[in-house]
């Protein structure tokens, strides 16, 4: 227990407890004493009333602002919880009724599907763009820059509407002679070719590609130049250098941002309602436009989005942990490990009925509380 210093009394009044313990430290060489515990009379000599052998108490710094804000936060949370519990306008029964309804689940499925496809295409294309942007070829470099510039400039909603209405611009698409509209190999009606689903995937993935390209590029340039040099000196081929040496190290910088993007994409899919695609949000809108139960249905969508985000966040934790191997001496424990450790310590404490230790701990914590709340 670090809280008791056997020097002159009136410790709580001492303005600098740390100074006291520092003064005590050099004198604690005696092997029988607890290194932080019992101090010697020399240390006590410079304390006001000498001859008193009461243990000195350490008063921990008080974080008034922290407590104040915590109190406000707890109050607001309680207020909100109370309002949720007492307002029946949330209509949780309606929420429950629709949460697993086939229409909502179908919308959810489409949302997930759009996320997976656009995310996959977006990150793949983004990776290529990033590599092109870093290549020595001026042409590839500027093409990639142009792509990123364009798709970061055009708002996603606008892009979706343009893709959906591409037929106004190019009524027919096909393969044929260059610089002509003589599509003798294959010809399609644009309206037929670009369904609302195709428009959504095109819009989302091109938009995503532009953003992920920059994220991936940032990750790659964050890897130390010496790594490339060492890999080249070992004669490792380009592909190996990129996939085995650079990318795993870049991943540490890429993963957190990439998950930001994917989570953004999940919610971003709700924008595709502009092309009348019945994903989660659109479905919910259709339902509440019919029955006017706006709030409970929006809650259905919100909770589903929150669930997806939660799953993704958990995945992010473990993926980040995987790529952190080697970069920290000891990996942070997973929640499960933390829980197991906590249970083990608690169990050990229960199992070890040493009265002294128990009493000491209790006294100390009482001291804490007393010092803290006074």
């Amino acid at each position, binding site marked *: 227990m670090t809280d008791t210093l056997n020097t002159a009394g009136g410790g709580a009044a001492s303005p600098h407890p740390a100074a006291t313990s520092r003064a005590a430290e050099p004198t604690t060489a005696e092997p029988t004493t607890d290194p932080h515990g019992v101090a010697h009379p020399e240390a006590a000599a410079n304390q006001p009333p000498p001859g008193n052998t009461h243990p000195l108490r350490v008063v921990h710094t008080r974080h008034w602002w922290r407590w104040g804000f915590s109190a406000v936060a707890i109050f607001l949370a309680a207020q909100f919880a109370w309002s949720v519990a007492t307002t029946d306008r949330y209509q949780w029964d309606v929420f429950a009724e629709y949460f697993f309804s086939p229409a909502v689940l179908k919308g959810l499925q489409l949302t997930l599907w759009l996320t997976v496809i656009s995310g996959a295409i977006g990150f793949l294309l983004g990776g290529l763009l990033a590599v092109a942007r870093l290549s020595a070829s001026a042409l590839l470099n500027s093409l990639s820059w142009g792509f990123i510039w364009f798709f970061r400039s055009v708002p996603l909603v606008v892009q979706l509407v343009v893709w959906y209405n591409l037929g106004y611009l190019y009524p027919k698409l096909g393969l044929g002679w260059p610089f002509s509209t003589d599509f003798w190999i294959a010809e399609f009606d644009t309206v037929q070719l670009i369904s609302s689903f195709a428009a959504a995937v095109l819009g989302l993935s091109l938009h995503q590609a532009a953003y992920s390209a920059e994220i991936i590029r940032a990750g790659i340039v964050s890897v130390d130049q010496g790594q490339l040099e060492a890999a080249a000196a070992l*004669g*490792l*081929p380009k592909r*190996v250098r990129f996939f085995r040496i650079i990318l795993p190290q870049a991943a540490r910088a890429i993963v957190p941002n990439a998950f930001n993007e994917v989570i953004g994409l999940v919610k971003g899919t709700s924008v595709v309602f502009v092309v009348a695609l019945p994903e989660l949000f659109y479905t919910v809108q259709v339902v509440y436009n019919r029955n006017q139960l706006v709030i409970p249905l929006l809650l259905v969508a919100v909770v589903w989005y929150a669930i997806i985000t939660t799953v993704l966040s958990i995945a992010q934790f473990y993926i980040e942990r995987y790529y952190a191997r080697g970069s920290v001496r000891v990996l942070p424990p997973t929640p499960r490990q933390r829980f197991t450790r906590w249970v083990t310590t608690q169990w050990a404490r229960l199992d070890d009925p040493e009265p002294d230790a128990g009493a000491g701990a209790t006294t100390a914590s009482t001291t804490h509380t007393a010092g803290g709340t006074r």
Partner: protein
Amino acid sequence: MSNTLTPSFDGGVFLGAAPAATTGLVEVSGVSKSYGGIEVLHNVTLTVQPGEVVALLGPSGSGKSTLLRTINHLESVDRGTVTIDGTYIGYERRGDRLYELHEREVLRRRTQIGMVFQNFNLFPHLTAIENIIEAPVALKRATRAEAIEQAKTLLSRVGLADKAGHYPRQLSGGQQQRVAIARALALKPKVLLFDEPTSALDPELVGEVLDVIRDLARVGTTLIIVTHEIGFAREVANRVVFLDKGHVLEQGTPGQVLGTPSHPRTQEFLRKVLA
């Protein structure tokens, strides 16, 4: 392509008695190199015999590291040629023309030369043993199992048999550098280049790395070492080369160059370093 690999290095991993070195001849002739108008190497000519140990000395900015990097073609040269056993690393000679080689071939030829860096440059996301087997496995020089066996031998050779599963950041600087040396040895190079291998180390860790290099010198690999350890150079090197501002000012046995330097620049440098 005069790719005459001698069998002596293919079997053992630098264990046992020194073979009479027959490969690892490095010829640098008339090499010049400039960066943005500043000449870092000026008409450098240097021949390193198979099995010879050469220490490159000189003040910082003298071009020692650049010279080292031109030898394994990490840097290309503006003028002059560099060959290993008569082979160009970055070019193919046909008649009196040098044809630039494709990267694949450059990389293949470069594996004849190992390099050890000042900052170790171990791959931090791979364990010690994974660092060592990466190149032999990727280049299909060995199966994974063979490479692991070989890597274990190399690790025990540098005194780190028990650190195989450690990540670089769990090792001390000296241990990291020894792993880096083992990694460079895994491809059985004919020539080893050391770029200030002990400069980033705490003083008490320098010795363990120098011990390993000393061992290699005995075995008969060609070693070219950029170093500031004058004592070590005196002890291990067959020849000391002094560079300043891209010029080779002086070369000879350690006794000559370090004992009785003839050039005033060398004298001044040694006075400062040994002070």
